[in-house]
């Protein structure tokens, strides 16, 4: 079976307070589903790797094939857990190690 290539994204979260991991991922899933539908969202293999509460930096994982979908969806997020928010992509990498070096 062919190995699925993945990409890790470091995100800067701009919002008042810090949402929980679930609230953040709900916002991401919601944005992907609104733009690409549930079938499209199911192809992204989205997963939360880490949420740094102090710096409000989030690391998520997605498949390489749907990286463009996810980037567009992240740019369209304007609220998380009912509060106004913005999500900016700080870096993209194939490994967590290389991603953390970029930050």
């Amino acid at each position, binding site marked *: 079976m062919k190995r699925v290539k993945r990409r890790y994204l470091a995100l800067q979260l701009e919002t008042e307070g810090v949402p929980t991991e679930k609230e953040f991922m709900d916002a991401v899933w919601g944005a992907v589903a609104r733009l690409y539908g549930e079938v499209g969202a199911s192809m992204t293999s989205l997963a939360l790797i880490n949420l740094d509460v102090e710096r409000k930096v989030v690391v998520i994982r997605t498949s390489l094939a749907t990286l*463009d979908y996810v980037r*567009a969806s992240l740019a369209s997020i304007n609220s998380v857990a009912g509060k106004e928010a913005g999500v900016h992509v700080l870096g993209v990498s194939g490994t967590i190690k290389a991603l953390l070096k970029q930050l």
Partner: protein
Amino acid sequence: MKRAFADLHLHINPKDQQTFERLIKRAAKFGYSYVSVPFNYEATQEESEKLRAFCSGFRLDFVLRADLRPRTENELTHCLRKIRRKFEVICVVCDNKEVARQAAKDRRVDLLSFPSLDYHKRFFDRSEAELACNSLAALEVDVTSLLVLEGPARIRLLSSLRREIAIALEFHVPVVVSSGVGDERFMRMPRDMASLGFLFGFDEAYALDAASTNPVAIVKRNREKLSSRFVAPGISVVKEGTDC
């Protein structure tokens, strides 16, 4: 070489100093190189120089832009005659077909913009693209509507944009992606703004060009034309004096 990104449409009143300063600081933080705020055509040089000086403090290049909303083609040509040499970028917001066609064929127009919400007024069809490709006009897309709208309105806008972008690509009409933001919470980093282009059919390279190469080319071309050394495209004065 590092790309220079441009946001040629910060949708704020240039007289609203506080909002302007907030957005400019944010644009500098996000890594833009060129920013622009639309003026009406009665803007004074004093006003624009003040904004330019503020931007240069943040290493941002301020582009002087005018947005025209003419009702007839005569009004458009009259305005263009009056202001073309005062502004670096001229955008025409096309409210009817007559104005859209005239704007597309006039070489003094840099950007064609269409209302995001009223899809009946999006006149960028094949005829419009054919006229635009023979002149210098580019199609401007404001992405802020994609962030604000939801549901059927956004679906309709995406559908219109996808059709228009396909036409623009077919006729080699350059596309410029701008934010169109009036509120800092909708401002996005340049690559994030470009990534919204994936939604209406851009590939990665073209999306990045639409936020960098295309707008920067318009600004450079017009600055060259407005310079006192410009004679004709490709010809400029390099030296003056009696010993030439």
